[in-house]
């Protein structure tokens, strides 16, 4: 009888050692083979410096819309706009806004539109003006593509004036000029009442000044 009991107890003795070891082995595979979990990347969070955001008030994707005296609808939109710091604003009472990624669109009553794009600029409510800089692209609806270094655009009347030389391509060909002004000529008849002012906007005139050079290549013999 003893021998039979002996085998059983030896078996149990061995199992008492092997089973915990096996359990330990299985437990360790839990950490060995699991894909490495990087605790830092566990959750995605934005890298924006929250303190900076709180300190500097700014508006993202602001929109400005208005109508000029001669009936041109003006819409200005930007990527980010910040109020101008004390140093920048001419009039601390009504600080303007400095913005980046600006797109402005002037739509006249007769349908002609001018779109302006610039990397950065400032909106000055006192003089009702936007100053754009850093390389401005101006496209008019009748085919003029104008590039200027900087541009000031009035918001209360149609007057876009470039600062510095401009190059343009358009129906007339390639144009290089010292400067460029887009404005609505004053209507011939003096505006009698306020209603008239909006009624008869003058023709929409694009002027290149400061020395103009145009290169026009006549279309080939074909057409």
């Amino acid at each position, binding site marked *: 009888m003893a021998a039979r009991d002996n085998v059983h107890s030896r078996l149990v003795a061995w199992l008492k050692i092997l089973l915990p070891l096996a359990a330990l082995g299985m437990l360790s595979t839990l950490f060995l083979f699991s894909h490495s979990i990087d605790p830092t990347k566990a959750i995605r969070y934005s890298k924006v410096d929250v303190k900076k955001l709180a300190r500097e008030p700014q508006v993202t994707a602001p929109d400005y819309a208005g109508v000029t005296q001669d009936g041109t609808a003006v819409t200005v939109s930007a990527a980010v706009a910040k109020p101008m710091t004390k140093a920048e604003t001419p009039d601390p009472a009504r600080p303007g806004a400095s913005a980046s990624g600006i797109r402005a669109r002037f739509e006249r009553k007769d349908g002609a539109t001018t779109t302006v794009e610039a990397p950065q600029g400032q909106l000055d409510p006192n003089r009702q003006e936007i100053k754009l800089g850093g390389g401005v692209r101006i496209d008019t609806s009748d085919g*003029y593509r104008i590039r200027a270094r900087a541009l000031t655009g009035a918001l209360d009347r149609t007057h876009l004036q470039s600062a510095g030389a401009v190059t343009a391509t358009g*129906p007339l060909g390639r144009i290089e*000029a010292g400067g460029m002004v887009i404005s609505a000529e004053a209507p011939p008849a003096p505006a009698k009442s306020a209603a008239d002012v909006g009624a008869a906007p003058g*023709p929409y005139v*694009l*002027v290149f000044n400061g020395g103009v050079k145009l290169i026009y290549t006549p279309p080939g013999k074909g057409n």
Partner: protein
Amino acid sequence: AIAQGTQVPLGGFKTDPSAPIQVTADKLQVNQADGTALFSGNVIVGQGKMRLSADKVHVTYAKPVDGQKGKIQTLEATGGVTLVTSPTEAAQAKTAVYTLQSGTVVMTGSVLLTQGQNVLSGQKLVVNLPSGMGTMEGRVTTTLQPNAAPKAPPSKAKTP
């Protein structure tokens, strides 16, 4: 009545009408409503060897159709127009109209054509750029400098 005019060969002057045109001026005003443009302030129109200078040049061009480039139709120069065709040859007039399609410049208003020493004046000068031929019309008067004409052999009859 056929317009009797004096055929004037403009010496060695041919302009390819499809050569690029360069216009320099002080100011260019584009009126987007009717598709015209006005160059003002010592305007110089250059094409090939031809130089046309004036105070104002009014350009009419056909609006570009579906993105195809616009075509200039006529250049109207006013105010002391001088058309220089070669170093020794120039024509002055009050106005000049250059139609690109036909390649002709029509100068009107006390036209004065000087070729070297010879001076030809009249009311109207039509210059055909590709062929280099000019036709002067209306009260044409010519003053020939007898001794200066190198080509002409010394003819016996001295013209007054």
